[in-house]
């Protein structure tokens, strides 16, 4: 693809802290290479802001910048992670945009993901959901000899697809109900489908859903917007699986679960 440079107008959400109101500010950036990533473009803008010394650089989350850590989170022109399918914002390249374009950048919007500063949101609600049951309680030991624990190929594939979830929160950002079901169902599926995670299937799904409700996420109406926004293309079939697990726990678990 041919390289080109572009000048852009950026409308970016600025918010001093959790309490302040926040609003959009407009910035101009020049000579942006089409081969830059979106975050590198923001870096250029931040350098510009630091040099000018008039206002603070824009705060945004990022870590690995190779699409696997799940930290970056920007809502670009109405889409979580921007216009490309199955791409995190760090892997979104500027060739997705044209010279002279205006780009609007917002943080994830959900009451469960409060804005900390500018484009940074507090996504610790996801950590607390994991703490509620997204794990295997016992040490399952060293890697055992191959095939000593039989795992069905179909199930292992499904578990691995679900395990690709990087917990970025794009599903919540895309959902009209701010539901976290795609995230929770990916974790429930990933662990529940494998033999090591199977014994705690019921307590896991009940505890994680209870924590999800406590954190104030909405309920799922199966509209599938999350699946389309997910950079890891987690399937909403996982949500149906979670529903099934929850139903079977609801029908058969004898003990009241205290969380």
């Amino acid at each position, binding site marked *: 693809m041919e390289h080109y440079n572009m000048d852009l107008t950026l*409308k970016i*959400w600025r918010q001093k802290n959790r309490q302040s109101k926040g609003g*959009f500010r407009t910035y101009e950036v020049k000579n942006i290479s089409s081969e830059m990533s979106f975050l590198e473009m923001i870096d250029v803008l931040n350098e510009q802001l630091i040099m000018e010394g008039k206002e603070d650089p824009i705060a945004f989350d990022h870590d690995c910048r190779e699409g696997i850590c799940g930290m970056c989170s920007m*809502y670009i*022109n*109405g*889409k979580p992670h921007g216009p490309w399918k199955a791409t995190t914002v760090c892997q979104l390249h500027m060739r997705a945009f044209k010279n002279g374009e205006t780009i*609007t950048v*917002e943080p994830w*919007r*959900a*009451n*469960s993901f409060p804005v900390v500063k500018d484009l940074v949101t507090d996504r610790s609600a996801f950590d607390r959901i994991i703490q509620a049951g997204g794990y295997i309680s016992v040490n399952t030991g060293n890697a055992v000899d191959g095939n000593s624990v039989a795992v069905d190929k179909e199930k292992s594939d499904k578990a691995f697809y679900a395990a690709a979830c990087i917990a970025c929160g794009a599903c919540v950002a*895309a959902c*009209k*109900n*701010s*539901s976290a079901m795609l995230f929770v169902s990916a974790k429930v599926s990933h662990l529940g489908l494998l033999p090591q995670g199977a014994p705690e299937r019921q307590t896991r799904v*009940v505890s994680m*859903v*209870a924590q*999800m*409700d406590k954190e*104030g*996420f*909405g*309920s*799922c*109406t*199966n*509209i*599938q*917007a999350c*699946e*389309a*926004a997910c950079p890891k293309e987690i399937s*909403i*079939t*996982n*949500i*149906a*699986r*979670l*529903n*099934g*697990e*929850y*139903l*079977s*726990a*609801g*029908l058969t*678990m004898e*003990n*009241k*679960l205290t969380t």
Partner: protein
Amino acid sequence: MTWKQMFTSSVGKKFVMALTGIFLISFLVVHVGLNACIWANDNGKMFNVAAHFMGTTILVRIMEIGLFLGIIVHLVQGYILNLQNQKRRSVGYAVEYGNRGSKWYSRSMGLLGTLLLLFLIMHIWHFWTPSRFGGMWSVQPLSEVTYPGTQIEYHNLYAEMLTVFQNPIIVILYVIGCISLAYHLMHGFESSFRTVGVHNNRYLTLIRYTGRGFSIIVSLAFAMMPVSMYLGWVK
């Protein structure tokens, strides 16, 4: 886990929506089947006899209470969930792209449901109340009809239909109601099965196409009833 927990968590509330939804879908099968009797072209005899059976059989009357409960639970729970879900995002987005990957009717179940509720109020007032309570709130007093071979006096609901559907505005409102039903079901049919945990891809494919077929065929059949009466296609 307790029963209460099971039906009051966010997933549990959706179970309630899905189960009542599936129940209401099953009611539509009965309703459309019975109403199709108007096309027997016997001046409404088959339809009136079928309606009489439904109105006088004790089991059906008991199930009718269940039906009303189902509708009420479905709509009250639906509105509560809709309201709660809207409150999960106090600060909205400046750029609403629409939701990539989701259909407009999937996002508008509340609106479609409201249209259906308005339709239902009109529909019940047209046919159910006059049939159950005589002419109390009827558009016109129900005529009675007897058929040779029996002494039973039947409510002439067929005549009621013919009268109601002489008004083109009512016919248009009914058609709008049926379109709302089609889109509501287009999402609701598949979604309800997903909510109760169907995740096997073979079944999901089956349910998807059955659902789409059901939504279109049933709604079209319902819509054709007022239209064919207005245009005088039934004898």
